[in-house]
Every structure is written in structure tokens, then in C-alpha cells.
């Protein structure tokens, strides 16, 4: 609270991103956890809630006649533009937010004050919903080849690894410790995924400290042990996910990559995924494109290409595909690493697992996958997503890229995933929101020390509770796409990778398809279920009546009303829909005040309220995904502009037409 210089500023305007001339007047509040904007308009009193932890950058722009503009960019790709009448107020808000958006202690984060009204037991149950021990059991472990190792108990060998680790049976503690000393941050090779069908496995580690010539007997033995744990293959792939140049440069620092001559029976392979800095800049560039105001098609496509974002997505996918093929088709085990083995390695291992194992394409399985390959293996959530104030160079959208890879796969295999796009978007949101404890800190060790499970709630339980919102209606457990490995085409198909506007422009609702097939089909399925139940009841009653008919027993009909299609048809027909600015130049369009505008915006509200799927996104922290985004991003720009310039110099209007 001591950081809030001014808790309330009145007469602030929230600028509509689509039609900047339209702005809502209201009051801005700063609280310990949120920035809240409440519109003055008495009928709506629309509220916009922004979590401090979602704030990525705050930019004070040059003061204009109307006031002092403040631009807030959020990590969930929302952009808020406020105009504050007084320079001094703007400065106070700016300084306060700068501090509030960069907490220095974990205790300042929202999850420590967030209270979803659950009792202790419910909270504890939430934390055990996703259980990695069970997951390893599901994989078929331990078995004759793999065993649970206690070598890392109390994090004695590697402080960024979990305590529960699976290693080849033949890897003794001596080998493990020896190997760990030869690996960056002592992240020795361990099992990430075991493919029951043919005993092949995906293992992960950091780079070896090989420099130009160093060797380590135990590390070599470790790789031998991994190979031996897969009797079906006489070699192991070692996949270095870095570009070769980067890996070579690391040798000068005493790190590097495996020399094929030193390790017997390995096949070494580079897969050029760029480092966190390249990825950070790439996203930055792509977001600049998304932010452009009425860009031309060329601006957009050029910008998208220039950002390189889809190229990076493809590189990650390619790596995952390579590994999945090696495992499923060649039956070979794969050791994956990058530099530290917690960014690219996490991406690639999880993409490969997702391709190989249908379980990870289910709701729970996907949570398990993130829990395993990202959370437990020490992906540095705190550093990468800037939860606490830290080195900005550590920030990078690594898990965002993984989430996008999943979306790209969902686009190609629409029936293969139990969850829908919304599920991915909400996970991304909560990785940054710090509303739940799951993604705090940089390692399991840190989380345990902070007693996260005792003090915060688990996102997984929350998502599971609301799972009805996240289901893909096309998913069927017995569908061919939900069986076995997903096979991607072997030919290079760049056009498979598409811009994900549902994520990066998710707050520009007007850009998204105005009717959701997913929601429609879910409504149909829901109705189907009711019909099934009713059918059963009807059959039962019919039978009964036929039986008792002889006795002339009267059965009074109390059956519910015929089920109505309107259940889902209404929501689809009340399309949130007003014209955009199609005239290109606002001025060029002479005026007449729109007559239907209000009625349509009412429709917008009702529809999106219905569709507001994540209760907590609307109730607590993140109003931005619910009602609010309508206020700031709804595409109702078109009719507004003309009315402002009404009557003004007709002649110049004409001139603009001519140049338009």
C-alpha cells in the first residue's frame, strides 16, 4: 500500500483501441493488487480490472490538450490506454504502477492474498490433483530398466531438479554424481518420458562441460546406461536443440556438446532453435505488428515475417517431430539438451511427448505435462515471466511458444485434443497472473522453501473445476485422432503454421470470428445429453404406463417443457457485431448519427457475458477477459467517427474522398 501515491483519479478516459476517438469516462483506482477503471456511464458502470502482475510496460506519452496519456501493455497481450487530465496525477499513477508492477518479494504477489473461499482441505486436494508419481506409474515405471533415484533428495546433487527422478537401473549413484559434475548446473541426464510400446525414452539434461576436449567417464557411462535401458536399439540420439554456432561458441567457455568419438553408440544432431534473447525480440516485433493501427495487409505480413516468430515456432515443432519419430518409428532413445536444459529442452520434450502420447492431449494429461516438463524440471518461471522484479534479459516467452505449438497442432488435428483454445489461453494468462502458486519461483526447491502449497491455491484444481468450459466438442476418446502418435506430414509445409490471433489479438474481439463453433457444438452436446436423459425417462414411463394401462392408472404428466434449441441458438444469433471503420479515413465519411448502435452494443454485452467462461476471470482478478475487453476493444468504431465530424467543412470532406 505504501507504493500507491494516489489511490483514485477521477475523469480519466479509457481510449478505445479500435476507434481512438471513442473513450469512456470514468474513475481510476489503484489497489494493492489491481488497477481498476470504473466507467461513469450509469447504465453500465463497466469495470476494467488489471492485475499488477500482468503489467508488462507502462509508457507515459506526451501530454496533449485533453490530458496526459498512459499506455499500459499487459503480458496477456491486452493494451490499455488511459488519458489522465492532470499531469501530476498521471505521474503519480505512473510511478505507483512502475513499482506495483515489479514486486520485489514473492509475498507481494497476488496468490498470497487471493482467497477463493476454499477450506484447507479443498486447497490441499487441489494440490494433489496433478500427481507426478502417478504419472510415472502410468508410463509403466519403475520397471526392469528404469528406477526411481533418491540421489537428489534434499536437492543435494542439483538444486533446479526435483527430488523424484527416474534414471536407468544401471546408473549408480557414482555415475550420476560424476555425470552431474560434467553438466551445466549439474543437470545430469534423467528421464522425461518413457514410451511403453518399445522401451524407448526421452531423456533430458544440460550441455556437457566438454570445452574443446574434456571428457567424463561417468557421463559417458550415463549415456551408455540410457542406451542399455532400451534393448530395442543399439544407439542413442543426442539432440542438441541449439544452433550449431551457439553450441560451438559455448566450447570456449568450457561447455559445449558431446563428441561422437568419445561416446559410444550415439548419434549426435543439432536442431537450431534460437536462444531466449532472440525469442524475446521476436515476440516484441510480432506484438508491434499486432499493435499497428489499421495496418495494410502488406504491413502485417511483412511484419509477421520480419518478426521471425512463426519460423521459431516451426523450429520447435520440427525438433519435437524429429524426437517423436526417433522414439516411435526408430525405437531409439533420445537425450535432449540445450545449454541449461530448462528452456528449449522443456519445449522440445513436451512437444515430443504430446505427439507421442494421447494422454497428454487430455485436460488432465496436459496439466501433468506442464507440471512434469516445465514446473518440476526447473523451468525458471520467475525469471522468464518477470513475476518479481529482475533482469529484463532473463524474460522470454518460452512457454508461450510451447502453448502456441499446441494450438498449431490443434488447428491441424481438430479432434485430437480434449481441451479447446480457451484452455490454452487461460493457462497462458495464469502463468503471468500469479493468482495461483503453481508457476511461482524458479525451481521446486524454491517453491518448497516458500511453502507454496500451504499458502496459495493450485491453478489445476481451478481449471479442473471449470473443465466444462475447456472441452473440445470434437474430442472423442475412441476417435482415430485420439489414438497413438500424431503423424505430421514429412514434407516441409510452412503454410501449416499460422498467426494465432486468438492469442495475440485476443482482446480485439472484433478481429475474432464472431460466432464460436466450439461454443455452439458444446451447447448442442449439452442438449444432447439432456435429451438422452429425457429419452430414458420417457421410455421408462412409457413402459410403466403400458404395464399399468390395464389397471387404468392415470399417470399425470409432469414432464418438462420440450427442450428448446434456443438454448444455443440465441447466443449464436445475438452476434456481437457493429461495423468497423471501413472508410479508411474517418474524416471522409460524412455524418448521420447511427440509429441502431445502442441496440447492437447491448447485444454485445449479453453475448459475451454468456460466454464468459472462466468465473474467476470475471469475478476476481481478471475482468479484462470478460466484460471489460468489450469496452476497450469492441469493434464498434465505424459509425462513431462520422458523427464527430458532422457538418464540418464539406469541401475538405470532398477533398478527402478524392484522395482516399
Amino acid at each position, binding site marked *: 500500500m505504501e507504493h500507491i501515491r494516489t489511490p483514485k483519479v477521477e475523469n480519466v478516459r479509457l481510449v478505445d483501441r479500435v476507434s481512438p476517438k471513442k473513450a469512456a469516462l470514468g474513475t481510476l483506482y489503484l489497489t494493492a493488487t489491481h488497477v481498476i477503471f470504473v466507467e461513469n456511464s450509469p447504465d453500465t458502470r463497466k469495470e476494467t480490472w488489471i492485475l499488477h502482475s500482468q503489467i508488462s510496460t507502462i509508457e507515459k506519452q506526451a501530454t496533449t490538450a485533453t490530458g496526459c496519456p498512459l499506455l499500459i501493455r499487459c503480458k496477456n497481450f491486452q493494451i490499455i490506454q488511459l488519458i489522465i487530465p492532470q499531469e501530476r496525477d498521471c505521474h503519480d499513477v505512473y510511478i505507483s504502477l512502475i513499482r506495483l508492477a515489479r514486486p520485489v518479494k514473492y509475498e507481494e504477489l497476488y496468490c498470497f492474498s487471493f482467497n477463493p473461499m476454499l477450506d484447507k482441505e479443498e486447497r490441499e486436494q487441489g494440490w494433489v490433483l496433478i500427481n507426478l508419481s502417478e504419472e510415472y506409474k502410468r508410463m509403466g515405471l519403475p520397471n526392469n530398466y528404469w528406477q526411481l533415484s533418491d540421489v537428489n533428495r534434499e536437492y543435494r546433487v542439483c538444486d533446479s531438479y526435483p527430488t523424484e527422478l527416474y534414471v536407468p537401473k544401471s546408473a549408480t549413484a557414482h555415475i550420476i554424481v560424476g555425470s552431474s559434475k560434467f553438466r551445466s548446473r549439474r543437470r545430469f541426464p534423467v528421464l522425461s518420458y518413457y514410451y511403453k510400446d518399445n522401451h524407448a525414452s526421452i531423456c533430458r539434461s544440460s550441455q556437457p562441460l566438454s570445452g574443446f576436449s574434456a571428457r567424463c567417464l561417468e557421463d559417458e557411462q550415463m549415456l551408455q546406461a540410457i542406451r542399455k535401458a532400451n534393448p530395442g536399439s543399439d544407439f542413442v540420439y543426442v539432440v542438441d536443440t541449439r544452433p550449431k554456432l551457439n553450441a560451438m561458441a559455448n566450447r570456449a567457455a568450457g561447455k559445449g556438446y558431446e563428441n561422437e568419438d568419445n561416446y559410444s553408440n550415439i548419434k549426435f544432431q543439432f536442431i537450431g532453435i534460437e536462444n531466449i534473447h532472440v525469442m524475446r525480440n521476436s515476440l516484441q516485433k510480432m506484438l508491434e505488428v499486432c499493435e499497428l493501427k489499421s495496418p495494410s495487409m502488406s504491413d502485417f505480413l511483412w511484419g509477421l515475417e520480419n518478426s521471425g516468430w512463426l519460423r521459431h515456432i516451426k523450429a520447435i515443432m520440427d525438433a519435437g517431430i524429429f524426437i517423436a519419430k526417433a522414439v516411435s518409428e526408430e525405437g531409439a532413445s533420445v537425450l535432449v539438451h540445450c545449454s541449461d536444459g530448462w528452456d528449449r529442452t522443456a519445449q522440445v520434450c513436451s512437444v515430443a511427448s504430446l505427439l507421442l502420447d494421447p494422454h497428454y492431449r487430455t485436460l488432465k494429461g496436459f496439466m501433468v505435462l506442464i507440471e512434469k516438463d516445465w514446473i518440476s524440471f526447473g523451468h525458471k518461471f520467475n525469471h522468464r515471466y518477470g513475476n518479481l522484479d529482475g533482469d529484463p534479459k532473463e524474460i522470454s516467452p518460452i512457454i508461450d511458444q510451447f502453448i502456441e505449438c499446441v494450438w498449431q497442432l490443434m488447428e491441424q*488435428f481438430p479432434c485430437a485434443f480434449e481441451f479447446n483454445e480457451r484452455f490454452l489461453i487461460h493457462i497462458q494468462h495464469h502463468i503471468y497472473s500469479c493468482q495461483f502458486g503453481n508457476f511461482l519461483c524458479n525451481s521446486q526447491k524454491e517453491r518448497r522453501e516458500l511453502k507454496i502449497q500451504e499458502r496459495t491455491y493450485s491453478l489445476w484444481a481451478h481449471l479442473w473445476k471449470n473443465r466444462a468450459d475447456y472441452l473440445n466438442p470434437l474430442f472423442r476418446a475412441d476417435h482415430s485422432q485420439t489414438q497413438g502418435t500424431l503423424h505430421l506430414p514429412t514434407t516441409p509445409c510452412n503454410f501449416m503454421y499460422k498467426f494465432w490471433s486468438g492469442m495475440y489479438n485476443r482482446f480485439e474481439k472484433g478481429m475474432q470470428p464472431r460466432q464460436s463453433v466450439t461454443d455452439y457444438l458444446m451447447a448442442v452436446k449439452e442438449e444432447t445429453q439432456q435429451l438422452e436423459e429425457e429419452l430414458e425417462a420417457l421410455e421408462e414411463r412409457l413402459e410403466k404406463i403400458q404395464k399399468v394401462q390395464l389397471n387404468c392408472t392415470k399417470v399425470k404428466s409432469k414432464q418438462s417443457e420440450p427442450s428448446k434449441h434456443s438454448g444455443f441458438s440465441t447466443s449464436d444469433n445475438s452476434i456481437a457485431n457493429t461495423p*468497423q471503420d471501413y472508410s479508411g479515413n474517418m474524416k471522409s465519411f460524412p455524418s448521420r448519427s447511427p440509429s441502431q448502435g445502442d441496440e447492437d452494443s447491448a447485444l454485445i454485452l449479453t453475448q459475451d457475458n454468456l460466454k464468459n467462461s472462466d468465473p474467476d476471470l470475471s469475478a476476481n482478478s481478471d475482468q479484462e477477459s470478460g466484460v471489460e475487453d468489450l469496452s476497450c476493444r469492441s469493434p464498434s468504431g465505424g459509425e462513431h467517427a462520422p458523427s464527430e465530424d458532422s457538418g464540418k467543412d464539406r469541401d475538405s470532406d470532398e477533398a478527402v474522398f478524392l484522395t482516399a
Partner: protein
Amino acid sequence: PGECLHHSCSLNYALSTLDSITLMYPFFYRPMFEVIEDGWHSFLPEQEFELYSSASGEWRLSYVNKEFAVCPSYPPTVIVPKSIDDEALRKVATFRHGGRFPVLSYYHQKNGMVIMRSGQPLTGTNGRRCKEDEKLINATLRVGKRGYIIDTRSLNVAQQARAKGGGFEQEAHYPQWRRIHKSIERYHILQESLIKLVEACNDQTHNMDRWLSKLEASNWLTHIKEILTTACLAAQCIDREGASVLIHGTEGTDSTLQVTSLAQIILEPRSRTIRGFEALIEREWLQAGHPFQQRCAQSAYCNTKQKWEAPVFLLFLDCVWQILRQFPCSFEFNENFLIMLFEHAYASQFGTFLGNSESERCKLKLQQKTMSLWSWVNQPSELSKYTNPLFEANNLVIWPSVAPQSLPLWEGIFLRWNRSSKYLDEAYEEMVNIIEYNKELQAKVNILRRQLAELETEDGMQESP
């Protein structure tokens, strides 16, 4: 090879001349199905006009072009303002490119505003004017109302057209009208765009970045965005501004029709049904004189520069697909319907898309000698392939987004042969199954309810005496 090219040139030419049309497949095709409804008579102008019953106070059918003498590219029947007689229409025709005097394209029931289309006015360099033309156009305005003239050409292009005798409406002579210029490309520019796009889609060797640059360089999506934007603008004038619109480019047979027909898709729920969309194509493309024979002769793989070749109709279909993608539940037809139309526009066993105008089709006696596409498509067994299972009648105006982020490549048509659609087809099938199963249950439940109700009343009857 040069000689070969020469031959193919002459072959192409031969194939696109009128005489040889009678040698084309539709004249030899013998249907193996029973014609339930003859498509040649499915969409008669009179019937279409009846739909605009409330328009009949201000508009009338004119048969001035009965012999195709006034305007060779118009159909015999057109809709014009009631107050303008045929004599005046003849005069106006001399002032409009290709004799294409302004006619009604769409009547907005909600507020009585209209879309009209025409050819460019032949003002020339010395600013020629035509009183009848001005009168006709003003006759479409209600008292105190203003209208918009949307010229699909940039101002620059429109000005250049004056040197060739064409031009645009001067404000001074049409004071109640406000002119807006957009720039929708024409002819070879569109054709080159298509060739480049198809080339990019077929080139599988390049990396991710080159794919995006090639997609960008093709400019295809730029054209899509421009056409859709113009159509939205026209629709906005009608529905939001309450103003009528006159649309033309140069000839009024290409970009004009893209805009008028897309505006109707946005404004008019009927044009989003199968039947309504067919009527729209019949009215706004075939009857309106889009020269299909010239435009859709070769498609993307022509090695010779075909002067008249241009994917105008394909761009239109692509735009419809874009709107369909944004409003997946508001169309009675699905993507396959659009793909089917694309295919038949370029190569077909049916006569529907033959010829460049109604007058050519008449001369070719297509109605007698060939089969109509609609006769085939409108059979229940065929229709089921093209019916969108998600369709729920939506009576609202639908405003699509024209942001680049909202306008992706139409993979269903451009990547059709370059990627397997197996998984997408399976998804579609799954979707159909979900909805079919629901309907099935609905039917079963209804039957049981009825049975139950009957039994219960029976019981009641037995009990009551």
C-alpha cells in the same frame, strides 16, 4: 517450344471465341439424373423482383433491353426507378459505358435504401453531362436524402479514364451525391496475383520466411481486404447512414459486382442461404453480365498472357469464405459449396457459366442445349453435401472484420492439393455427427412424448366415465 507456345496461343484463342463454345463439354453432356427442377427457370427476374414487394412503389421492371439492343451485357429485364421511362433509359444508356445505365441491384427492406450499379459515365475530357442520367440517379433518392457514389477505382485511375471518353460523376452535376473512390484492382493485376499465390502455395522447398514474403508479394490478401472493405463501406452507407449507393468502376462488370454482391451478403440474410446465394449469383453475376467466358478461361496455370483473364469471381468467393469463417453459423452453405462454384466457373459439364452475358447465352441457346448447374446442385442428395450443419438463421446484418489478422489464406482452395485434409475432414464429419445425433434424439423424444400424451389422454378417457 516457341512454335508450341504459338499453337497454344491460337488454341487458347480458338477456345475462347464464341463459335467454339458450342464444341464444349456442356453441349455434349447428357445428364444421368432426373431433373426435378429445371435450374434455367429457378431464378426468374420477375420472381426476384416480387421479393422486393415493398419496393414496387418506387421501382419497376423494365423490358427496354428485350432485344439486347440498349445494353448488350444486360439481361432483357432490369429494375429501374418507376418515374423513369424507357425512352429516358435509352438516353442514359448512351451516356454510360457499355450502355450500362444505373439499375437496381439491392433493395434494403429495413429502410428502403438501395444499391444501384452501372458503367462509368462517359463524361470524357470536356465534362459531358446527361440530364436524363442525373434525373435517373436523383429519382432514386427520397426527399431530403443524400446518396453515395462508390467508384471502385482510385481517383487517379478514374481521371485517366476521362482521356478515353470515360470518367466519373462531377459533384456539380450530382449535388445530392457524395463520391468515394476505392481502389480495387482489375484484370492482369489480379491474374498475376493469382499466379504468384498459386506458385507460392505449390513451392514446398522454401522456408517459413520465404513463404510469408511470397504470400505477401502475391498481394492476393491485399485484394481481398480491399474488396471486402469496399463492400462493407457500401453496406454501412445503406444500413448505418441510411443512404442509397450507386456503385461502378469502369465497365461495371467486375469490381462493381464484387462489391454489390458482397454488400448483399452482409446486409441480406437471404443471400446467406443456399437458394438465396444461387439467386445472388444468377442476378449479380450471370444476369449482370460478368464475362465468365473471358475471365475464367485458364485459371492460374496459363503460360500466355490472357488479356481478359482475371480471377474476379474467385476473389468474390474468397471474400464470401472470409465472412463465412467469421460467422460460421450464419450461412446455410459450407465451404464446399463455394469450392464447387469455383470449379464450375472454370470448367463444367453445365452451361450455367458459359458465355459472357445473357445475350450470348441466348444466342447459344444454352437453355435448350445444355443443362443448368442449379438443376444438378439443387437435388436433395447434392444439397446435403453443401449444407452447413451449424446454420441457424440469423436475421442481423453481419459486419465482418477487415483487419489483416482476420483475413487468412483460404486453405481449402489454395492448399487443397498441397496438404492432406484428412484430419480436417474427420473434424467436419464429427461435427455433422454431433448435430445429426442431436436431431435424431430430438425426433425420438418428440415421438415418445406424443405417444405418452396419447396414452395418458386415453387413460384419462377410460377413467373419466
